């Protein structure tokens, strides 16, 4: 009833909401993040174009992280090729087949973890669907976003896809062993492009084939894992009488 004259007409009211549209995903992601932190597990959301070398970097990471337990969830529209490759490299892996979805979300990751032995891992790599657009805005509960950008993709990719690179904590410039064959591509130009889309640009040139740059990357992972523990400790300390 409209409440003014009692005519029985419905009333239209304006409601202030001011809530992020992806807030439900963010709540689920925070739930995952809490689980990861409790277990001292570093979760990395690895993003990049199809063919940027995400899987190859992880294969090479396994070789450089002996003594650490690595796991990976590989998101793909179809096939479980990436997970099979990662398993062959010694990484506990499962596929998240998205069908037609162009990105992973916190629900997909949460569901996959129910069937995946993740609790004793040191690192969990969530290899997102190859795409420089959609995955950038979905929080998966990761501790850090890492974007793989190959030197063959073009120096201006960061300027063309600013949303993705803005979200990155670290950019791995992959396939740098190919630079001698690409006379038009300069790392300085890529670095300049990154500095215009990332407020604190951090990038490591790497090659999964030659191993160049990988020690720096694995050292970064280890640092981030320690940071996680340092952050987690005061919270745990409060729980212990």
């Amino acid at each position, binding site marked *: 009833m409209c409440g003014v004259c009692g005519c029985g007409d419905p009333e239209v009211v304006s409601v202030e*909401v001011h809530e992020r549209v992806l807030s439900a995903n963010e709540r689920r992601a925070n739930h995952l993040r809490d689980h990861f932190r409790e277990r001292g597990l570093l979760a990395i959301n690895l993003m990049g174009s199809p063919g940027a070398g995400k899987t190859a970097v992880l294969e090479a990471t396994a070789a450089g992280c002996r003594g650490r337990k690595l796991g990976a969830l590989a998101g793909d529209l179809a096939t479980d090729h990436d997970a099979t490759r990662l398993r062959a490299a010694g990484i506990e892996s499962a596929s998240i087949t998205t069908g037609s979805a162009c990105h992973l979300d916190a629900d997909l990751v949460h569901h996959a973890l129910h069937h995946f032995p993740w609790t004793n891992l040191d690192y969990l790599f969530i290899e997102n669907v190859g795409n420089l657009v959609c995955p950038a805005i979905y929080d998966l509960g990761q501790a850090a976003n890492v974007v793989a950008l190959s030197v063959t993709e073009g120096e201006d990719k960061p300027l063309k896809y600013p949303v993705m690179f803005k979200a990155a904590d670290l950019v791995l410039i992959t396939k740098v062993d190919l630079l001698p064959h690409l006379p038009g591509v300069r790392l300085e130009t890529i670095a300049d492009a990154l500095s*215009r889309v990332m407020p604190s640009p951090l990038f490591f040139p790497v090659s999964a084939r030659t191993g160049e740059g990988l020690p720096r990357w694995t050292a970064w992972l280890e640092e981030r894992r320690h940071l996680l523990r340092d952050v987690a400790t005061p919270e745990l300390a409060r729980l212990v009488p």
Partner: protein
Amino acid sequence: MHEYSIVQALLEQAAAEARRHGARSVHRLTVTVGELSGVEATLLATAYETFREGTVCAGAPLEIRAVKARWQCPWCERTLERGAVLECPRCARPARLTDGDEIVLETLELEVP
């Protein structure tokens, strides 16, 4: 094209608000979409037209307000020029995005009995 999943999240959010207020239907939605939100307003509008049918928003127009990206120095609050290196030229501090990454449901007009 993730605009479809954004619209699904938006419709769920609107339906939840409508339930909370005991509303029969939604008359209008207003959302803000930032330039660096990763969402394209035109695609969002198309996805909305496709998915609103049969929902509590079936009769509700979607108003999309675009928000320009703004990078600012967290120290001196100077706004950086578009396309510039994201470091304050005066304070040498990394800039902070103050506007332009939002996808926010701002207001709803609800029909209440």
